[in-house]
């Protein structure tokens, strides 16, 4: 029987200014997490970034959530970033908006994982 020891967290981001490139943002956040806690922590965090319409969503596990949050706020970008909402499900993120966020339906869905 497969047992999950970790729970997922979805972090919804919002930007003020130009939207950054998905690949660049992913690289910077992963690098920052690695800088803060090391490569093994990064590997264990289950971190990946995807995009839906104008919003970026980061998925990680509940253990690494605070470190990922700190990494988001300490990374230097060409625009300002803010965390709008954190939820245990993707559907939970969509409650603030008219349409629920379901990455599999979106044409913009890009699963970016190194």
């Amino acid at each position, binding site marked *: 029987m497969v047992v999950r020891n970790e729970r997922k967290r979805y972090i919804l981001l919002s930007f*003020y200014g130009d939207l950054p490139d998905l690949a660049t943002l992913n690289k910077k956040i992963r690098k920052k997490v690695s*800088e803060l806690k090391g490569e093994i922590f990064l590997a264990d965090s289950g971190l990946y970034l995807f995009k839906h319409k104008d919003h970026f969503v980061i998925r990680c596990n509940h253990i690494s959530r605070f470190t990922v949050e*700190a990494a988001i706020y300490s990374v*230097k970008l*060409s625009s300002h970033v*803010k965390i709008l909402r954190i939820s245990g499900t993707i559907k939970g993120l969509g409650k603030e908006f008219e349409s629920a966020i379901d990455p599999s339906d979106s044409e913009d869905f890009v699963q970016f994982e190194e």
Partner: protein
Amino acid sequence: MRQFISGLNEINNPDLLKFLNIKLIGLHTSSDQLPESDFETYSELILDEKQDKLKPGSLKQKLSKNRLKYDIIVVRAFTAKIAALAARDGRVDAILLSDRSTVKVFNRRFARRLQENNKLIYLDVSNFIGSIRASTIRPYLRILQSMEGIPLHFILVNYTLNELDFRPYRGLQSIARLLNLSPSNTDIQPLYDRIQLNRKKISGKIPFVGIEIIEEED
């Protein structure tokens, strides 16, 4: 939760501050020169020991000269003498810690003195934005570890000239978690209470400690 930013000279970009959900802004001007705006503003003075070339006598002079002009007075000390004077003096509201602070001065004994005198601690986390070096983080960790167990109020500040480095207070709290500071330690309610108290003292509504004038009879 009120979001707060400190260290501005003026409000240049209100849309950005609204995006960051900032409601309370500390400005480096005197109380009578605070601009009118949609944000709550307060006046703040930072006395830096090295920049202002402070000695115990000159610090006392500056405090007596400026106390009635500013809502919050912060002292950035590097030597034990100035730090001890700032911790004891009732005219100082907060002590500023940065990466250049040392554990020789800011240790457990100093933390107890701050707690007895009900001082706030401003913690400058601007070095955590961008590239982080272990040599920059180490002074913070050593100081905070030595102060562990003593209930203190930390206020997180981000003294930076670059607007791109502005962060919401929640973001600074998430960075402070890396230093083992929980959000309850870094709440800004004590700062807000201190501003209200100082304004009452400056306006004469609190003439002596423990006495507040609520209504004046004509």
